[in-house]
């Protein structure tokens, strides 16, 4: 493999991550819509579409491996391969969470008194989608500042998640509901919260890509010391 085709390989990898990013945004968007509309066919479409996301993740993993094996990348090339591998894994997991949400959408009973919960879930979803879009943008733009701000955009989601759980534990009179329904709502909110968490972790990888910082520290391990010693 020539150096030229190596650089093309890196470009392709970058593009495929972005393509995977839009697939995952769509999956999250549609899965939450299916939840709110009770739309089974939409939910099924998300579940079916997850295969493509998984396949793309595998392709990216294989590409990262072969480029490393054949080109011994260093510096920004090394950081890009390392980051793509991990970002791809985060995106794949977000895809799985969208599938989980879709499965709940198919089973969720429509009960009276659900509206306050649905309202919170809608807000959570919108915010989670925003975190996800910004996370992918920070990768596309190599924007470390944006990548590091994701935790902040994630905060209201954690708040809403706690609010939903609290409400489920101490329901108001008119909200009396089945245990099954309550479990579904708790899980749905948990999945949405997890999506945003995955993006926040992804942001740390993007920070590394741009700055070489690992967990806020500079990558300069002493040659005589090993991590964890």
């Amino acid at each position, binding site marked *: 493999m020539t*150096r030229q085709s*190596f*650089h093309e390989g890196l470009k392709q990898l970058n593009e495929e991550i972005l393509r995977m990013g839009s697939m995952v945004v769509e999956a999250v968007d549609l899965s939450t819509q299916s939840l709110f509309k009770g739309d089974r066919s939409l939910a099924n479409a998300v579940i079916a579409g997850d295969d493509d996301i998984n396949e793309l993740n595998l392709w990216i993993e294989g590409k990262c491996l072969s480029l490393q094996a054949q080109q*011994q*990348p*260093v*510096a*920004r*090339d*090394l*950081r890009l391969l390392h980051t793509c591998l991990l970002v791809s894994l985060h995106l794949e997991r977000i895809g799985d969470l969208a599938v989980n949400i879709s499965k709940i959408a198919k089973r969720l009973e429509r009960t009276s008194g659900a509206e306050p919960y649905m309202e919170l879930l809608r807000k959570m979803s919108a915010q989670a989608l925003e975190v996800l879009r910004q996370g992918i943008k920070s990768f596309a733009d190599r924007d470390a500042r944006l990548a590091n701000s994701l935790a902040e955009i994630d905060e209201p989601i954690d708040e809403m998640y706690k609010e939903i759980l609290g409400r489920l534990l101490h329901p108001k009179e008119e909200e009396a509901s089945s245990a099954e329904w309550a479990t579904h709502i708790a899980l749905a909110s948990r999945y949405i919260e997890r999506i945003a968490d995955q993006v926040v972790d992804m942001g740390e990888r993007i920070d590394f890509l741009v*700055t*070489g910082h690992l967990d806020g520290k*500079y*990558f*300069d*391990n*002493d*040659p005589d010391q090993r991590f964890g010693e």
Partner: protein
Amino acid sequence: MVTAEAQKKVQLQEVNFYYGDFKALEDINLDIEANKVTALIGPSGCGKSTVLRLINRMHEVAGRTRVEGRVLLDSEDVYSPGMDVVGLRSRVGEIFQKPNPFPKTIYDNVAYGPRLQGRSSRDELDGIVERALRQAALWKEVQNKLKTSALELSGGQQQRLCIARTLAVEPEVILMDEPCSALDPVATQQIEDTMDSLKKDYTIIIVTHNMQQAARVSEYTGFMLIQETGEPGRLVEYGLTSKIFTMPDRKETENYITGRFG
């Protein structure tokens, strides 16, 4: 992280170097840590070999040259008038690109330096030869044929013999100028393993065009560059190898090590 107490074995301070009127190096500042492997990388002609030669004054055999600034070995100026150049060269040994054994026996190649130093007792020389060959990871292969000609050895064995010849005079610093460029991957790996085991006793500076080799063998890496043809070479970046190959500070370094030349 360069620890404060780490010992600086060799130091170049504000060094300029001239071959006749040609300024080959400008403002080189370089602290070489004791008992570490330091790699110098950079494009052809940037002055890597010149830096090595400066340290044991080998350039002086090349004709009219001039050094400005200070070159220190254990804080002592290598260019001070009192410096004993022969003694300097036995403290700072070197290994060249092509193995260059003398057309003598394996034994005589290794014993050559010690004999020059006036050691002539058979027992002492036997001991020195065995120790040096063991350190150079060649003993097992040649112990039964010490009296055969060095020229009958393979290229990789010859290079390890040259390392043994250098080690026999117990230098403190070993300069290696592209020591593996004429060797196959197996011999290269043997030399690299040898370097790794040597660094507890020696300070090693290696010039290599093989960036993967620099990444593999060294703890510190210096990247040198000439900006334009005819200009002097400079040290663009110097630091931990793990850092340079993951997150170099300078764009020029990154472009060079990632193969984005010109």
